[in-house]
C-alpha cells in the first residue's frame, strides 16, 4: 500500500480484556517496528521484526505483550489482561531493510483501557 496502515484507529476496552492491534506495512518492507507513545512523551520501542522473526523484543514491558508477523507482512500486537496503564497510542513503522532509523510510521492505534 501507499503507507503503513493500522487498525483500528481507536480501541476502548475494559480492564482485564484481551486486545489485538493490526499493522499493515508498506508493501515489500522487510523491517517492521512497534512503538508505544504515552501522552506528552516520545515513542518508546517495543519490538522489531525482520521478515517473520522477532529480531529484538527487548522493549516489550512484560509477558502480557506479544507480537507476531507470520507471513512477513502484516503484524499483530496482542495484549492480554489489559491494565489501565496500557492506555497509549501504539505506533507501527516499516522500512525496506532493517538497521536504519529513518522509517515510515503509521497513524497509530489509540488504546484506552477503562
Amino acid at each position, binding site marked *: 500500500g501507499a503507507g503503513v496502515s493500522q487498525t483500528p484507529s481507536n480501541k476502548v476496552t475494559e480492564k482485564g480484556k484481551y486486545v489485538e492491534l493490526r499493522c499493515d506495512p508498506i508493501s515489500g518492507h522487510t523491517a517492521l517496528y512497534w512503538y508505544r507513545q504515552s501522552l506528552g512523551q516520545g515513542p518508546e520501542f517495543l519490538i522489531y521484526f525482520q521478515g517473520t522473526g522477532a529480531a529484538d523484543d527487548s522493549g516489550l514491558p512484560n509477558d502480557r505483550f506479544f507480537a507476531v508477523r507470520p507471513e512477513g507482512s502484516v503484524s499483530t500486537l496482542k495484549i492480554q489482561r489489559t491494565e489501565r496503564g496500557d492506555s497509549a497510542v501504539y*505506533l507501527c513503522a516499516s522500512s525496506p531493510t*532493517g538497521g536504519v532509523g529513518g*522509517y515510515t510510521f503509521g497513524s497509530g492505534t489509540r488504546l484506552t483501557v477503562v
Partner: protein
Amino acid sequence: EDQVTQSPEALRLQEGESSSLNCSYTVSGLRGLFWYRQDPGKGPEFLFTLYSAGEEKEKERLKATLTKKESFLHITAPKPEDSATYLCAVQHQGGSSNTGKLIFGQGTTLQVKP
C-alpha cells in the same frame, strides 16, 4: 544508559520569527541521530538523519545540525503550517545497531502564530 532530552518542551513563535530547538543526547557510540515531525493524531514523519559531528541537512525552512553532544533544528522564517511536535531520536552502535531501534526524546511542541 542512552538518553535524549529536548528543550524547550513548548515554543510559541510569531510567523517569520526564527528560532532553534535543542536535542541533547547521551549514547554509547552514535550510529545516527534522527529528526521527526508529528502532527496531532498522526504518526511521526521522518525529516532528517545525521551521522557525524559537523554534519548539516536542510529541507525548506528547516536545518538540522549535529555536534558530539547535541543537535539543533533551526527554523527560519516559520509559517503556521510548521506548527507540530518535533521529535529527536538516536540509534546507538552496538547490539542494537543492526535493528534500527531508536531512543526518542519527549519532543518540542511548536506553535507558529500568523
